[in-house]
């Protein structure tokens, strides 16, 4: 790791200020992606802004939604009785990210801000019609994710929390990459009174995306048969040494069926 400076921010505006006064500062949340990147000398930030002391942890029931602080660890979401009651699929998703040590350190905000195309959380934000709350504004999920590792976040913006709408029913089904245990395909299906949202992670060349064909099929008939009736195209899906686009397309259908029937 190159040498760097560490600033411990006391609140998000201090964090933003620290970024502004650095050349190439980076926010350090749980560090589960950033630290391995730094260790391999793939990034050389002059300053890391540690936001663990910014008071961004916690889970709140907001009536029709659940608001989770950006620095809330995956383990805390997985073990939260509030989340388990309001959106059990979200607790399940958090409980299946990485391994236990990753869940003990990794954070919601870090995962969402990084927008790794194989990360689990972005699919939940998307399918649960989430809102990303930053120090400046609220950004809807559909506007937030801008393709692989790209988000709508600006330089002077830090995620403070994410809100997830409570669905009638939801399920996340992940087919893990056998090596990395990231999602090779992850499908989050959420049924709301006004329709079904289906978000797919791990598969898209542009990162997480909503699958409109599956959404409309399931909105009119929430059943496995409806999924079978959709031809999942491999267009725009990733092909790599772990899985071809064809196979990922097959998995999207399969994981969606399992999510619907669970």
């Amino acid at each position, binding site marked *: 790791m190159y040498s760097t400076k560490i600033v411990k921010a006391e609140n998000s505006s201090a964090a933003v200020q620290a970024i502004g006064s650095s050349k190439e500062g980076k926010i350090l949340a749980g560090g589960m992606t950033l630290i*391995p990147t730094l*260790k391999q000398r793939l990034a050389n930030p002059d300053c890391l802004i540690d936001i663990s002391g910014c008071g961004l942890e916690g889970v709140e029931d907001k009536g029709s939604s659940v608001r989770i602080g950006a620095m809330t660890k995956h*383990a805390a979401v997985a073990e939260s009785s509030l989340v388990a009651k309001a959106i059990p699929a979200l607790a399940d998703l958090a409980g299946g990210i990485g391994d236990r040590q990753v869940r003990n350190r990794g954070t919601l905000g870090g995962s969402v801000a990084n927008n790794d195309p194989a990360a689990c959380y972005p699919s939940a934000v998307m399918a649960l019609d989430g809102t990303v709350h930053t120090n400046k504004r609220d950004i809807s999920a559909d506007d937030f994710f801008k393709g692989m590792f790209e988000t709508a976040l600006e330089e002077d913006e830090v995620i403070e929390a994410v809100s997830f709408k409570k669905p009638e029913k939801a399920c996340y089904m992940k087919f893990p990459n056998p090596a990395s245990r990231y999602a090779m395909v992850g499908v989050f299906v959420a049924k709301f009174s006004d329709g079904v949202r289906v978000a797919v992670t791990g598969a898209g060349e542009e990162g997480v995306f909503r699958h409109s064909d599956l959404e409309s099929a399931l909105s009119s008939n929430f059943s496995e048969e409806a999924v079978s009736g959709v031809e999942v195209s491999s267009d725009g899906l990733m092909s790599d040494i772990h899985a071809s686009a064809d196979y990922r397309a097959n998995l999207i259908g399969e994981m969606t069926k399992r999510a619907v029937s669970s």
Partner: protein
Amino acid sequence: MAEVSLKVNGKVENHEVGENTLLVDFIRETVGLTGTHVGCDTSQCGACVVHVDGVSVKACTMLAMQAEGSEVTTIEGIGSSEKLHPMQEAFHENHGLQCGFCTPGMVMSAIELVSKNKSPSEAEIRDGLEGNICRCTGYHNIVKSVQAGAEKMGG
């Protein structure tokens, strides 16, 4: 350089280190406890698992400064040669280790696993050890060890 102060196995460790010092290097090089190992660069093998304030973490993916003010427990802090921790004892009795390199991380993971689930099933143990890679044992005897360790720990 920055001053880092934390407790390792109950002892205050106050040292001036580079700000980019990883917790695992702080433990191995600065404090001199070499039971915590490094087996990969991508936070997957789990040879470096320690407890920070009671939860298991991979010490290779945490900066020492992130552990400022914390209580760190390493494999050297859970038992002694004279009196092994029940989980260490269980690994010995069930031949849960061969070359020993993954063992410290495996034991630290297992202890946390059992602290959250007092009598885990075989499937729960296998799932719970997802973050620890062993190349020697095929995990068969590790699973047995963790089951026995859970019983000894009062599960």
